[in-house]
């Protein structure tokens, strides 16, 4: 199956290794992976900060870039939920664009839901001897209903011991512009999240959402905790020890 890789803006310029891992994992699952040129972003920052005019322009650009693909896969739940849930809402007064959005929404997938639900692959031959804990990002779990898929995939990684933390589905406090506007509240939320992660004794913190990883990973790093924050694609593409 031919598919298009959508590389979210945060991945493109800040975590490019996540997109690389995603491409490798999808190729491993037997997919023919393509990277359509001209792609930029889904527009959720604009949408969520109340600037719908600007969000519409970005959304139109996104739809133009990806309109002809049978499947579009992204290593991020929030971008997928933006396209699938909020694009039709953004264009509700423009029927042509709304229909295009609804149609594209059915073909845009978050990585783990694509692997388990569409490609029907759970064992990607990955190996990593470590204790890991999975964080249910709000935009992956609550917005898209993806809960079991990442756990299924991680349970097939050789050597990986998958732990569960307390309140795995409570928000990490990122919230995009929220963390810039109310940094103190955001810090308190991520501190609590990290306390739950540390309590498990895990060495790896795994998530399917890039923004949570930037938040939790950034906190872990600056506070000097040894836990590594990784996108699930990075774990699934791993073969060494």
């Amino acid at each position: 199956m031919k598919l298009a890789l959508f590389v979210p803006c945060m991945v493109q310029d800040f975590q490019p290794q996540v997109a690389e891992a995603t491409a490798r994992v999808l190729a491993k699952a037997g997919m023919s992976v393509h990277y359509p040129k001209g792609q930029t972003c889904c527009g959720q920052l604009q949408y969520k900060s109340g600037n719908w005019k600007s969000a519409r322009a970005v959304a139109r650009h996104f739809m133009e870039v990806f309109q002809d693909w049978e499947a579009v896969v992204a290593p991020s739940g929030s971008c997928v939920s933006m396209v699938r849930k909020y694009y039709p809402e953004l264009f509700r007064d423009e029927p042509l664009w709304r229909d295009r959005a609804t149609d594209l929404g059915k073909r845009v997938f978050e990585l783990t839901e694509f692997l388990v639900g569409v490609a029907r692959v759970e064992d990607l031959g990955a190996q990593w001897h470590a204790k890991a804990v999975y964080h249910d990002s709000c935009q992956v779990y609550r917005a898209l209903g993806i809960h079991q898929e990442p756990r299924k995939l991680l349970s097939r990684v050789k050597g990986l011991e998958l732990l569960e933390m307390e309140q795995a589905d409570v928000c990490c406090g990122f919230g995009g512009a929220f963390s810039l506007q109310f940094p103190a509240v955001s810090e308190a939320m991520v501190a609590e999240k990290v306390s739950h992660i540390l309590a498990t004794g895990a060495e790896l913190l795994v998530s399917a959402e890039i923004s949570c990883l930037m938040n939790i990973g950034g906190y872990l790093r600056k506070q000097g905790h040894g836990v590594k924050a990784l996108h699930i694609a990075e774990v699934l593409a791993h073969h060494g020890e």
Partner: protein
Amino acid sequence: MHVRSLEFGKRAQEALLDERLQRNLERIGVRFKVGRDMAFAALEDPEGLRSLGRAIKEKSLANLPFLLETLEARVKEAGGVVHWARTGKEACRTVCDLAKQRGVRTVVKGKSMVTEEIGLNQALQSQGIETWETDLGEFIIQLAGEPPSHIIGPAVHKSKEQIAELFAEKLGVPKVEAPEELTRIAREKLREKFVGADMGITGANAAVAETGSIVLLENEGNIRLSVTIPRIHVALVGIEKVIPTLEDLAVILALLPRSATGQKLSCYTSIITGPRRQGELDGPEEFHLILLDNGRSKILADPDRRQSLYCLRCGSCLNVCPVYRKVGGHSYGWVYSGPIGAVLTPQLVPARLARDLPFASTLCGACAEVCPVKIELPKLLLTMRQRLSEDPNFDGGIPLILRLAAKFHGWLLTHYSLYRLAMDGARVASRLLMCDGRWSWLPPPLSRWARKRYLPAPARPFLKIWPRLKKELVQGGEKS
């Protein structure tokens, strides 16, 4: 009530530093959230019940004018008097006039968010009328001179030690910390007020149009005393509280206590239709129902915001909100707090006074999962953000710098070459600003973000990695 919602950021920061408050907030999860989850887990079809609840609110608000007229007619038939109030001020004036005309000196009150909304206590007190809150939590915050910090537990921000100190100071009683003792003190103080009161004021959890009844849920029995002992009962009810029938009420009664406190039913459920009738032993001589608009019909008229009015005031969205649980109710600066407060406040007060609140959320969606009438709170928060930012009738939104940054970013995203050029520029600039993997300088608000978190610098973008990776993947594919 004075609106202090613009101070959200500042007060949230203070709340985070208040260790006692943080300890008190931690109990909310245990006290309310767990109970709610257990109560719903025990239901055969919790989703179905919530959908039914939503359908009832949808239908009620779609037929609001008719239902309100029916309610008015039935209340009159039952011997009650109906007053209409466009604004909080009008409602306060009606209550004060009633009190003055009837020589009322002392008022006892049942717990009511809507009277907090319109500042009724202050209005009565300014007329020299003694007013006593009789719900234990409300009694505590009245003594403390504070607004409620939670819809269901107005004094949830206080520990029993703090309450003991407060009672000792304000009531002149010895300092005791056992909850039973504190309750006994409040009860003794309040019993004398009940007996001496001329007027009882309550809100209502619902009003039933077909019978002209108001419905009051409580656990302490103080509301029942407030509506049976004084000679006048005044119920202040937002127009959105009306539902068509008693059958609809059965659904609300199944949802509300479970959502609020995890109970199958509150200890007291009072359905009150008019004043005492001839031959009856209990009840007031007069029953007045004040139907309050105070901005609600404007919300009703807007299809995108209408579901804000479905709220049953159970408080369950507060209990699961990770922001509320960190900053507490007072940070929101008005009467309603948490996700529903962030939605309602800018609609009920001048929007610019509460423009930050819809942005004070990560949109995590935990609230929508527990709402008994399935209010799509994240969607409403997004709608309010859009209105505040784009609609000239609203006036506010996020700080200008963030708004402009988002706009510029949005413009770049539709101009691919310029976007790439800008990111290349950012990468070069970041190299100049980084020293040994640390930022030597960051512009605000990024600097604040990076106080406790490492902020990644722009890396070599994926599109530069892709050509080599593509080759590798194609060759790998050919091999296998």
